């Protein structure tokens, strides 16, 4: 089933993918913090308003993934911010999230030693996004 990019349906599909992943279950053990993804608006790509994805991740499980405002996501313990088209690149495997962060294409806020300790978990979460069939607004 195809879902609209960064919609409530996408959030549910993402949560299901994370919870299906045995790799994430192991790599995310010990993780106890919330993660917010801020998807910045790009009106020329038909993504008119910024959105925030709020992820309640706990001990290798996605307890909840919700779509809200960018401000909601910014309240999380860890916040990763990028424009819509960068997130699309990540979700379509055009951009590796680790490289993106080192290059400043994805902006990270949060305790660095903690996020570095969970590099494998974050890589697997990125993999989870690539397994979702997405309808991209700029491809309509």
């Amino acid at each position, binding site marked *: 089933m195809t879902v609209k990019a960064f919609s409530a349906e996408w959030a549910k599909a993402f949560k299901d993918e994370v919870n299906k992943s045995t790799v994430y279950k192991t790599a995310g053990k010990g993780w*106890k*913090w*919330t993660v917010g993804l801020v998807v910045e608006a790009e009106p020329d790509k038909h993504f008119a308003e910024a959105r925030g994805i709020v992820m*309640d991740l*706990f001990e290798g499980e996605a*307890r*909840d993934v919700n779509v809200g405002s960018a401000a909601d996501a910014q*309240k999380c*313990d*860890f916040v990763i911010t990028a424009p819509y088209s960068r997130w699309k690149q990540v979700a379509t495997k055009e951009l*590796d999230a*680790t*490289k993106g*962060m*080192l*290059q*400043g*294409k994805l*902006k*990270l*806020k*949060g*305790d*660095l*030693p*903690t996020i*570095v*300790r969970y*590099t494998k978990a974050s890589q697997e979460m990125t993999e989870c996004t690539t397994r979702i069939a997405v309808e991209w607004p700029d491809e309509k």
Partner: protein
Amino acid sequence: MHDTDRGRMARRKVKAEITGGGGKGLVDYADKEPSAFSSMLGGLIEANVESRPEKQPDFSSLVARVGIWVTDIDEGVTLDFKGGKLTVHNGLKPRRTITIRADAETVMSLSNLKIGRLGLPVYYDEVGRGVAGKLLRGKLKIDGLLPNIMTLNSVTRIFSVQ
């Protein structure tokens, strides 16, 4: 930190932003606009040293210029350790003691090396074997390694988040 009770969530203050620092001034940046990679490494080391007292002796005593070049993004930094202070330069600067060249994933793995009982990096667990394998296959290159093994061990201890 989250409450262990399912469905309830509590907030935990996090210490550093990628572009920021903890405030003790252990790390400064040579460039007016530090690259994202410079900010990330500087921020990581600063947060590590401030939050983990066992890293302080290495940080206080290390005097070395360490270059790190990330081969798959064509970006690098020079970490100039000056006995209790670190200056981070964008790019590779001259007179480096050692230079590490590897892809982004391997550079992150270096931060995930565990430190064993004698203060030596652990190369027999999954992460360690991965790093050692890359070194043997030439995917991780360390210029100046042989005469500076102690320096590399100090840097690894400062760098390690484990």
